């Protein structure tokens, strides 16, 4: 059994731009989010050149650190995305198909899967280890597991960010995803945070389960957005509820995740 505490979280979509707006949507209130994305951590000049993928990641990572009141330079990071930056892949493949020598050097170095943690480290001055991972449809489970194991084995806070972009037209042949989504969880070893939001227990099971469909929220349709499969956990976290979900880890294994909320009684005897 793997047990870690959650010290903070971050969330962004076109319908809710931060945890406050997310809670408002869950409470049935109107939010006036305009889907703007201006992560303060990235200087304005750099922000213009930074891809949307990077801006989403840096925004939710910063939100999670602020909620936990932890110095972003002191946390390791794991970025996860099933499809990676489909906008840059689309740009690269279009340019290569027509005029390969016109490839932009900035777009090329932004095309690495670890671009988000690269920009994050430059913005925060962090030399802590940074990882960038993918497990296709199972990216939430795999990133959660990787981040938790790192937090416990290295005895350090580790920040995970997961996100998917909307699919450009050619990619819609293989994945129909319309609404972008990003979230972050700051995971710490038990005892590290005095006031954790909750704790997670993770257990492996050598069986296959179906990928759960992400819930619809407000008007947002997160169908096929792999990152949004974390929503049931984030909803429970934001509402102070207990939750149990089973997330596929591969065609042959499953991750059972239980969220206990710190505000709730540690054990509930009948």
């Amino acid at each position: 059994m793997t047990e870690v505490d959650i010290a903070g979280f971050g969330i962004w979509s076109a319908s809710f731009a931060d945890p406050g707006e997310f809670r408002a949507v869950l409470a049935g209130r109107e939010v006036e989010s305009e889907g703007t994305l201006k992560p303060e951590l990235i200087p304005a000049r750099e922000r213009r050149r930074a891809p949307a993928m990077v801006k989403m990641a840096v925004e939710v990572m910063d939100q999670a650190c602020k909620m936990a009141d932890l110095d972003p330079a002191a946390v390791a990071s794991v970025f996860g995305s099933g499809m990676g930056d489909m906008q840059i892949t689309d740009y690269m493949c279009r340019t290569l198909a027509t005029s390969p020598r016109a490839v932009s050097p900035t777009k090329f170095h932004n095309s690495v899967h670890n671009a988000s943690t690269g920009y994050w480290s430059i913005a925060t001055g962090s030399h802590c280890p940074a990882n960038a991972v993918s497990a296709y449809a199972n990216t939430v489970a795999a990133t959660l597991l990787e981040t938790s194991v790192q937090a416990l084995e290295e005895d350090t806070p580790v920040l995970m960010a997961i996100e998917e972009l909307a699919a450009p037209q050619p990619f819609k042949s293989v994945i129909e995803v319309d609404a972008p989504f990003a979230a972050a969880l700051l995971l710490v070893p038990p005892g590290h945070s005095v006031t954790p939001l909750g704790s997670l227990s993770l257990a492996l099971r050598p069986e296959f389960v179906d990928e759960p469909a992400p819930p619809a929220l407000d008007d947002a349709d997160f169908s096929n957005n792999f990152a949004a499969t974390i929503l049931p956990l984030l909803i429970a976290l934001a509402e102070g509820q207990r939750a149990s979900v089973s997330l596929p880890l591969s065609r042959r294994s499953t991750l059972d995740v239980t969220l206990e909320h710190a505000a709730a009684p540690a054990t509930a005897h009948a």
Partner: protein
Amino acid sequence: MRLAIGQYTATSAIGIGLDPMREAIRSRRSGLRPNDLANCDLETWIGRVDGLESVSLPDELGHLMSRNNQLAWLGLQQDGMLDSIAELKERAGDDRIGVIIGTSTSSIGRTEEAYTKLLPNEAMAPEYCQPEVHNLHSPGIFVVEATGIRGPALTISTACSSSAKVFASAARWINHGLVDAVLVGGIDSLCMSILYGFNSLELVSPERCRPFDRRRNGINIGESCGYAIVAREELIDHAEFMLLGYGESVDAYHMSHPHPEGKGAMLAMTRALERADVAPTDVDYINLHGTASQANDRIEAAALGQLFSEHTLASSTKAWTGHTLGAAGILEAIITLEAMRQDLVPGTLNCDEPDDDFAFDVITENVERPVRHAMTNSFGFGGNNATLVFGCAND
């Protein structure tokens, strides 16, 4: 830290499997050739795996067709790797083994091809509608399907440190008790994105690459595939080598230029040595990142000069294989293990006029010498660095 290294194998421009690789290193035969990749008009040298285009996938894996997965399959069939995996599954249980693959390209070569044949409505043509191929986890999916391993599976993609970091994550998974063994791998294949991308940054050499030479003028790009079993000691009979340490760091400086004082490189090396509890004076050999770019070699040599004495032999093997990017970490880890096995340290190829401004001299000729502790460096875009430390099992 001490984890056993079981069976391993590597395929690159210097050969399919370990035997031709050993011969190429001993005889100092480079695998680089003038660029002859179809549809690519760049004047450069490349490290291409011969005959890769004609490798066919088994029927049940046909839906995963891509050059990268052809390379994954070719590599998996060498040096009894599949037999060793089957044996490990018997011994540990197929759900007690994980899969972690490092890649920077994944199957993007296949996506590039799909974009050259888009239908008028911008849909992909039917033969390219492969959901499990046009994503970063494509090699991870392929290896899980090809081996039937039932533990957790992950693809790591941190540019050129990807398949060095697979060893770090594998060590954490095993030390945590999540699994008892991990099949780690690295697979990167030649594609247009990489060749024209590095060309746009003016980092590609029109000639043979010359790591640490004063005339060095850029990198040659290659493709490779490597696998290794990392496991609890009791699972591997007569293991020859141990993974003793890993160090991971970030430059926090620039997306495509290394930190000018090598801060991230120093941190990766010192963190790896600390974890391994090995003193710099006890390191016999370092396989360097040594890409033959102006900046990398100067900065890496400066970092070495601060940590190591002349007792430690160091070299780059990129003039044999080319820079195989996301697969370079494991390819060069395996070249390092082979140096330990053969007591033969490869001297940097094509370094005929070593840059004498450097704070540390790399070796330029092969040296026969026992290697008990060895290290390998991998530094990538995004300032992402990883260093591994290996030791002989009977130390």
